[in-house]
């Protein structure tokens, strides 16, 4: 452009400025339509049941540390009662026609949508994630899972032709705190569609939406015992997975606990699916649509405060565009609005718990110690509650802890590569294998890479997109089994095979 020397306007250094001319007013979502009881009991056999121990656990709003409610701590005998209730309900539930089961699931989905705002607010309060996400992602997707699986309930014979799919029995399901309602829907919807009954144990720190889902079950007239919810802590979960009445255990959570569960069910003839941790890589090639790749990387690591097992926590960027890309990313990170989760304009909310915040801080300190360069956005974080700013490390090497361990927070580690082979090698050099993102404009390269990525989900020019029809699950220490889609339903049926009577 030598011929055209641009006449510079009187702006000193070309840098952008934000927030000085026009500020948004606070836009808090109202909470008055979302009453929270002082105390919640266990949902067993369609009854709200007091725990035998008489013990309760407090659950708090992580954005303010204000107590929201307390929930029952289920012990061994409570868990036993829940499994027995599910066993009792099983013969009648499996005997119903698929069409009949579908009716209940459709009803649940519709009620969920009717009460969407209430669920979104409750999830935001109990979890700390922004209302924008609960409103636009968690709740609609949860409803979609019920709709989707309702559609399959009367078509299982078509899904597994000639294999006479049968339900397994009582399923024990243990879910994490990062997507409390959505995970409950992922677990419960396919199980019920296939004719199983369930006992669900929500996370200790985010139990409220699963309990409210029980109100939806009541409203939908779901027969007692088909779905049971037992709240509690790690002991409750351990009691559930050890219960001899289960036909299958489905777990989503940390790799550490997943391994314990695998040991606990070993040799018992209990089916198991595990969806565990991750350390996913984004591969950004120089020919990619960089501005949109920046959006995808931001969505990949800062969505849900980075509390996502498939979060794109490692960015592998082609060396030739590293500086440009990091510059773009740094500017874009400055635009992330961190603040009160109930504000409709908040992009990133509170870290879910004190313990998780401590874990993030520890790993970030380790990154600094190991010599990586930390970039954090300057944002005013509230005094109360658990908060961490959007963070990025550059100059990370493959041996750093921040490149190997799952941080489960809003922290991105940036590494580089020079050739596609090197990109694949680095992306796969991890004990996890849940997801990966490929950013390039070249179709052939996408296919070449996707075939080589050891990851259950490979996103191309997008990230963190979920759909009930799309199977989700991992390789290696990210677990096994799939959730969603036809593959997800496979984990909830026994196939007789052949034509002989089973």
């Amino acid at each position, binding site marked *: 452009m030598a011929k055209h020397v641009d006449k510079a306007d009187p702006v000193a250094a070309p840098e952008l400025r*934000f927030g000085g001319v026009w500020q948004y007013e606070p836009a808090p979502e109202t909470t008055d339509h979302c009453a929270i009881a002082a105390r919640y009991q266990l949902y067993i056999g369609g009854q709200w049941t007091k725990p035998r121990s008489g013990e309760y656990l407090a659950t708090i709003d992580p954005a303010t540390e204000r107590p929201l409610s307390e929930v029952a701590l289920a012990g061994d005998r409570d868990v036993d009662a829940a499994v027995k209730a599910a066993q009792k309900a099983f013969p009648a539930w499996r005997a119903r026609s698929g069409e009949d089961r579908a009716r209940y699931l459709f009803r649940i989905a519709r009620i969920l949508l009717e009460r969407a705002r209430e669920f979104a607010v409750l999830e935001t309060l109990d979890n700390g994630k922004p209302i924008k996400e609960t409103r*636009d992602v968690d709740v609609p997707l949860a409803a979609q899972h019920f709709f989707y699986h309702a559609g399959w309930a009367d078509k299982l014979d078509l899904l597994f032709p000639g294999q006479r799919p049968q339900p397994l029995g009582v399923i024990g399901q243990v879910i994490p705190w990062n997507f409390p309602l959505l995970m409950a829907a992922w677990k419960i919807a396919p199980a019920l569609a296939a004719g199983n009954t369930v006992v669900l144990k929500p996370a200790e720190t985010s139990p409220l939406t699963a309990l409210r889902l029980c109100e939806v079950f009541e409203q939908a007239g779901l027969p007692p015992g088909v779905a049971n919810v037992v709240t509690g802590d790690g002991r409750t979960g351990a009691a559930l997975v050890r219960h001899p009445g289960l036909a299958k255990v489905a777990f989503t959570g940390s790799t550490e606990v997943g391994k314990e569960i695998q040991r606990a069910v070993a040799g018992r003839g209990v089916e198991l699916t595990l969806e565990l941790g991750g350390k996913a890589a984004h591969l950004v090639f120089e*020919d990619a649509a960089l501005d949109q790749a920046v959006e995808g990387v931001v969505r990949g690591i800062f969505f849900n405060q980075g509390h996502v097992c498939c979060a794109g926590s490692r960015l592998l960027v082609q060396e030739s565009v590293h500086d440009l890309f990091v510059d773009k990313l740094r500017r874009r990170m400055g635009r992330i609005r961190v603040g009160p989760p109930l504000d409709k304009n908040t992009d990133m909310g509170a870290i879910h718990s004190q313990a998780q915040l401590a874990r993030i801080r520890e790993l970030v300190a380790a990154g600094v110690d190991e010599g990586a360069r930390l970039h954090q956005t300057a944002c005013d974080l509230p005094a109360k509650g658990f908060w961490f700013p959007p963070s990025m490390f550059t100059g990370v090497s493959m041996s750093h802890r921040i490149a190997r361990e799952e941080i489960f927070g809003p922290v991105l580690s940036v590494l580089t590569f020079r050739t596609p082979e090197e990109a694949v090698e680095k992306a796969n050099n991890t004990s996890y294998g849940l997801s990966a993102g490929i950013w390039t404009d070249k179709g052939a390269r996408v296919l070449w890479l996707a075939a080589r990525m050891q990851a259950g989900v490979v996103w191309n020019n997008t990230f963190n997109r979920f759909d009930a029809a799309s199977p989700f699950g991992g390789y290696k220490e990210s677990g096994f089994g799939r959730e969603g889609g036809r593959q997800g339903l496979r984990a909830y049926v026994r196939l007789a095979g052949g034509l002989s009577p089973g």
Partner: protein
Amino acid sequence: MAASLSPVEFRVPPVDAVALETRAADLATRSIKKRAKVQGLCLAVSMMDLTTLEGMDSPGKVRQLCGKARRPLPTRPDVPPCAAVCVYPDLVPIAVEALRGSPVQVASVATGFPAGRTDRQTKLREVELAVAAGATEIDMVIDRGAFLAGRYGLVYDEICAVKEACGAAHLKVILETGELRTYDNMRRACRIALLAGADFLKTSTGKVTPASTLPTVLLLLEAVRDHFLETGRMVGVKAAGGIRTSKDALRYLVLVAETCGDLWLSPRWFRFGASSLLNDVLLQLEKERTGRYQRPADFSAD
């Protein structure tokens, strides 16, 4: 006239349609209420190029529009005047006369608006005459035929020539994104116009559908942002065509605020090209003041 650039100069990064549209849709969910809404709407009024571009335009209509642009809401002095009145070249003298002594600029479309299907000499002469008649801003159209045929040098040369013919008048380059169709094309057209010295990139003539859309304007904003960071030169963006409601206007302002930031949040660097938008903004401003919606008939029709 400037010599042509090598085609290499017109290379641009690819644009991913899905992700661009996702980002635009995400920003469209921003909730703008109360003081922020009033401030945003007043800003929108000050950024408006009040436009009439019809075959049936008359001096009377233009005078009326000019009156509206000077004082959009006579009962409320806090509502600023519009940025400009935009007319066909033959009505420039009328607008100049009607706007004398006001801060409102006179913009004229030129270069064979809206199709641009005329020869270079006629285009340049039209620009010169409009400027001579007092237009301080020229809205030109690019040669989409040449662009879609891959003759980028020709498009570039023409913008350079028009820029020269403009003299001191500001040049807004209309890309007519609805005819360029793909975001990759739009991004390339932005690059050509930026290199050729455009003062503003403008989406559309308003005569082609789709006209202005959120993802398109986001793309233009990204182009001027990157150009600024690269060269230090600021270029404005004008969203024109199809913007009718206050809610739309606020959504565009959110794009500006979160993509280019404070520097662009002024009528000097961002404009709306619209005709029916103003009355809806006034309706909303009065609603914020009184708590009630007025009848549409309470605002002067133009």
